[in-house]
């Protein structure tokens, strides 16, 4: 009995991977059986077959054989990357400057807190009425979704820089610019990257929301079209694509996070 328990709780590689695979198989089987027991306009199975079109075959068709779908995917990725990159470029320096200048921080802090907790999706009608339907209003939506988590975490990080280290810098007669590169940025980077990881998930929501509510385009449009046609396999396949994007962005951010926080002596 205790041997069985020890095996179950072991974090040996083979046990861990075995558990992951088993769990995924159970999930897939469940999905498959639910898919087969509903009408195809309500739910699609994973693999599917005759008169129950499957999600995986549809995904394969989309990615491999559907030029138009690939264009939609590219459109979405472009939208995401542009909005996200702009959010990083603006939020990181602002966060560090705010940590260095108490007055600026006091002036902006309440706005940031309010906007950080505001559901950005509620702002979409304003953006629509003020800026219209183009590419750039959509970028603004993605930007807004990503901006505040990064700013917030960067500010937290830059504010928690050890005063002892700033004192060392001062004692060695460092210039303000050198303080940024030697102390503030390296210290803040792990926090910023945590913000970036959180922001990646939010920006993805922003991307789909923008493609829904402004001029439909990209994966959002594919999703709407498929759902209007009661094509559940298509809907689920697109959801899988979006999920895949999310996991990819998150993993990339995580990899950076680990790389640049190695000096903390954890994750080893």
């Amino acid at each position, binding site marked *: 009995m205790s041997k069985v328990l020890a095996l179950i709780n072991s974090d040996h590689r083979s046990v861990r991977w075995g558990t992951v695979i088993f769990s995924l198989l159970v999930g897939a089987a469940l999905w498959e059986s639910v898919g087969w027991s509903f009408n195809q306009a309500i739910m699609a199975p994973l693999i599917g077959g005759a008169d129950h079109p499957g999600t995986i075959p549809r995904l394969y068709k989309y990615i491999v054989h559907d030029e138009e779908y690939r264009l939609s995917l590219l459109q979405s990725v472009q939208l995401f990357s542009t909005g996200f990159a702009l959010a990083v470029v603006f939020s990181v320096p602002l966060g560090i400057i705010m940590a260095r200048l108490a007055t600026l921080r006091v002036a902006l802090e309440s706005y940031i807190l309010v906007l950080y907790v505001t559901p950005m999706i509620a702002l979409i009608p304003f953006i629509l009425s003020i800026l219209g339907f183009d590419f750039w209003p959509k970028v603004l939506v993605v930007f807004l979704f990503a901006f505040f988590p990064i700013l917030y975490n960067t500010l937290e990080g830059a504010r928690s820089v050890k005063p002892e*280290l700033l004192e*060392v810098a001062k004692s*060695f*007669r460092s210039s303000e610019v050198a303080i940024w590169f*030697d102390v503030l940025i390296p210290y803040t980077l792990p926090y910023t990257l945590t913000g970036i990881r959180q922001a990646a998930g939010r920006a993805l929501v922003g991307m789909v929301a923008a493609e829904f509510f402004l001029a439909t385009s990209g994966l959002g449009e594919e999703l709407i079209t498929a759902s209007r046609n009661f094509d559940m396999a298509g809907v689920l396949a697109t959801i899988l694509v979006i999920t895949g994007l999310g996991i990819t962005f998150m993993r990339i951010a995580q990899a950076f996070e680990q790389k640049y926080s190695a*000096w903390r002596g954890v994750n080893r």
Partner: protein
Amino acid sequence: MSVDLNADGPADGQSDRSARIEINSIGKRYGDLQVFQDINLDFNEREIVTIVGPSGCGKTTLLRCIDGLLPVSEGEIRIEGELMTTPREGVAMVFQHFGLFPWKTVFQNVGYGLKLAGASKAEIAEKVPYFINLVGLDGFDSSFPYQLSGGMQQRCGLARALAMEPSVLLMDEPFAAVDAQTREILQFELLRIWDMRPMTMIFVTHSIEEAVLMGDRVVVLKGRPSSVFEIIDVNLPAPRDRSTLAHPRFSELREHVWGTLMDEVRAAEFDVN
């Protein structure tokens, strides 16, 4: 480790690496808290002065003022006649908390001050290994601070300060955070390094033994707000080494300072509890 004690360091040949420091009736206040007052001290060239006093009596604050990190509230500090207002070339500090940059390697930490001072890559590549070797950290160039023991981290902090080839070295309880055996080793190594390149050293400690062992003179801080209670000429034979600890004069001085500070230490203890 073998270091030739008279090795040609990168900056050998500079005959004058020491400075004269004058402290004229300085005081320091944090708001309503008067930390110390009416402190008058002179530090000579190539002299080791230890400053001893109980925790919280303002030793760190005093060093910060001397380094130019903090303005004094009263009086003035002059180094080579120049008024001290902001950190100055030729003065380097070793911190109680080590103050290493955790994301920099030992090499980068030791080269930090040189880089800020505008040294070329070649100059840094020449000097840094010399000082890493001097403090006995050979082979750890590319280690990060979290991979080093406390004693080794402070060796790194010491090398970073020495690399500036300062004429004034300020030491703020540099060995307070390392274990007892390591502390002893580091004390003697520091004296050995000082012998090779003598400079004005102001060494702050709360350990009476350390103060007597390291100092040419011992300054005893006492009172609330604190001020200089006594300045003792140590006059122990050079070189100071383990045998110094057994010298009758050493225990005599230690007991003397202990007697002076005992009531103060007690008061501080009750203050904390």
